[in-house]
């Protein structure tokens, strides 16, 4: 994907401005801040570290920390359906991301460029959808999907996820499209491009960070949902990872090693995705596009 507009848009609408990059003037305050933040990070991330630590520790909580083992992982991968759940989660999440991007990109364009009462109404609709308590839709959707044979089905789940990401994804897209000058599309229209072609060829092509932001958001939401998955999915071959993880608690004594090993499996994909793409991720701009224009 070649990018005809260089650097100017690379950072996204709200990339934090790195503090003045002057030469080092006495390292002490700089190191002090670094140390402060380091300590804060270490304290705040204790729950994450704990998960990883326990996953690599042998069973029996009391044993010393020096033992390192992969036994928990080999157990959960060979004796439980973690691989199936991982596959299910990946399938649902990727489908959600793909559809959510395809649906919210054009919608975001309308929100960004549209200037009518109808667009305002659409903005309000999105806002209401976002504030809609999902718990209300769970029961009626369960009944509906049961009739359509979409309950206990990953497709049904993906449909629900797409619609629960739509509002934020659309705002993110719109926020990014806002940073792209209308003049560019106007030039394309003069050259005979239709409105839609102008959107795809000019706006969308230059909006990789906006698209990725929405995609990351959809990924995180779909990957970690518990509510809908817990209501819709019944057969354990259809479980997604969050539901699968919960099954480890149903036994009388929880085997924390296994639980944490599965937890690591659950948290690695979003961390990888976010780790690689976070420089594109920006949510700060959505305020500007919330209510339309």
């Amino acid at each position: 994907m070649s990018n005809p507009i260089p650097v100017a848009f690379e950072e996204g609408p709200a990339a934090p401005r790195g503090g003045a990059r002057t030469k080092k003037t006495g390292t002490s305050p700089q190191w002090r801040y670094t140390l402060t933040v380091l300590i804060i990070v270490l304290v705040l991330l204790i729950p994450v570290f704990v998960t990883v630590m326990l996953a690599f520790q042998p069973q029996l909580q009391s044993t010393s920390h020096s033992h390192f083992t992969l036994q928990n992982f080999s157990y959960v991968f060979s004796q439980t359906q973690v691989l199936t759940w991982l596959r299910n989660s990946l399938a649902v999440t990727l489908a959600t991301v793909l559809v959510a991007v395809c649906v919210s990109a054009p919608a975001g364009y309308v929100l960004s460029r549209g200037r009518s009462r109808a667009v305002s109404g659409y903005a309000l609709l999105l806002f209401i959808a976002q504030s809609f308590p999902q718990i209300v839709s769970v029961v009626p959707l369960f009944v509906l999907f049961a009739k359509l044979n979409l309950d206990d089905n990953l497709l049904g789940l993906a449909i629900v996820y797409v619609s629960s990401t739509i509002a934020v994804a659309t705002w993110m897209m719109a926020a990014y499209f806002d940073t792209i000058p209308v003049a560019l599309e106007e030039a394309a229209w003069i050259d005979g491009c239709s409105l839609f072609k102008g959107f795809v060829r000019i706006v969308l092509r230059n909006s990789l960070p906006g698209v990725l932001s929405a995609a990351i958001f959809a990924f995180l939401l779909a990957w970690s949902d518990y509510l809908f998955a817990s209501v819709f999915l019944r057969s354990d071959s259809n479980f997604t990872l969050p539901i699968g993880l919960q099954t480890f608690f149903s036994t009388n004594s929880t085997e924390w090693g296994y639980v944490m090993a599965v937890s690591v499996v659950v948290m690695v994909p979003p961390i990888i995705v976010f780790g690689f793409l976070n420089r594109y991720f920006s949510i700060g701009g959505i305020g500007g596009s919330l209510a339309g224009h």
Partner: protein
Amino acid sequence: MRAKVASTKTGPSNVLSGLSRARRGVGLGGRSEHQPRPPRRFSNRAITLSLMVFPSVLLVILIYGYPAVGAVIQSLHDGNLVQLGPYVGLQNYWTDLHNPVFWHSVRFTVVYCVVGVFGSWVVGLGLALLLRRRMHARNFFKTMLLLPWVVPVVVTATSWNWLVATPSSPVPRIAQDLGFGQLLFLDSPGLAQFIVCVYKIWLSYPFMMLMASAALAGVEEQLYEAARVDGAGAWQLFRRITLPLIARSTYISWILMFIFCIGDFQSIYLLTGGGPVSSTSTLVVLSYVTVFGDFQTGPGVAIGIIMLLVSVLVSVILFRRIKKVQVS
């Protein structure tokens, strides 16, 4: 807002005129501003735009509109998940409103939202301000600080559980060593509420940090220097310059966080299940537990409908306010 952003990218005059022309639907291709666009061409544009929003409107109606109607119907009937029972009028609502647990949940929902919004805002803004300082590995730290938001709630609820739940967990043991006696964090109502709120702040500060650092990025350093010359202290700089400049974005982040908090199901349910004795139930959790735990579909759905009415009302009011804030 948009004109401001765009104008930094290209010349202001150019974009502004383009904007106003586009806004009036006044055309291109050499047509002068006085000649209105022929209606057919205009409606082409409208049709394309409508088609572009159509899929998302359809999904919203399918996943929100239809179930809302279904839920209203269900809340007026007896019966269970699969079978709709006889019509009972408003009796399910009556049951809810006379249930002390319901009012307890209302109170805790308010507490949870207030603490969730402002607690995470304070932490997030504090971290965003700290991250503006010159330091090593800033981007690495920033990414690390977002982890509570990136790691799925099922995972972090599990590890928080491990850290605090049983008497032999690390945090209660440390508390005991510090002389607080035996604290059962998730077994005593007050402490469980406290832990749930702290957990929510921990989950939500990354979002606030992102919103705050985006807003802070737009604050000019020179403003501070000018104020410093005039002898303003750090607190004054923050109070008189930083806060007013990020006010709009702050307001919007509060609203969004409020919406996230009030609809939040999994972080409470996975940490405490709403217990002990419903002390940490918000309305969402109570609704879920009533439907799927006590199998009282009618009253449970009715709780959802009450929430729905309140949320929609509040969000319409907030939406209007956002529009006003945006204009000013």
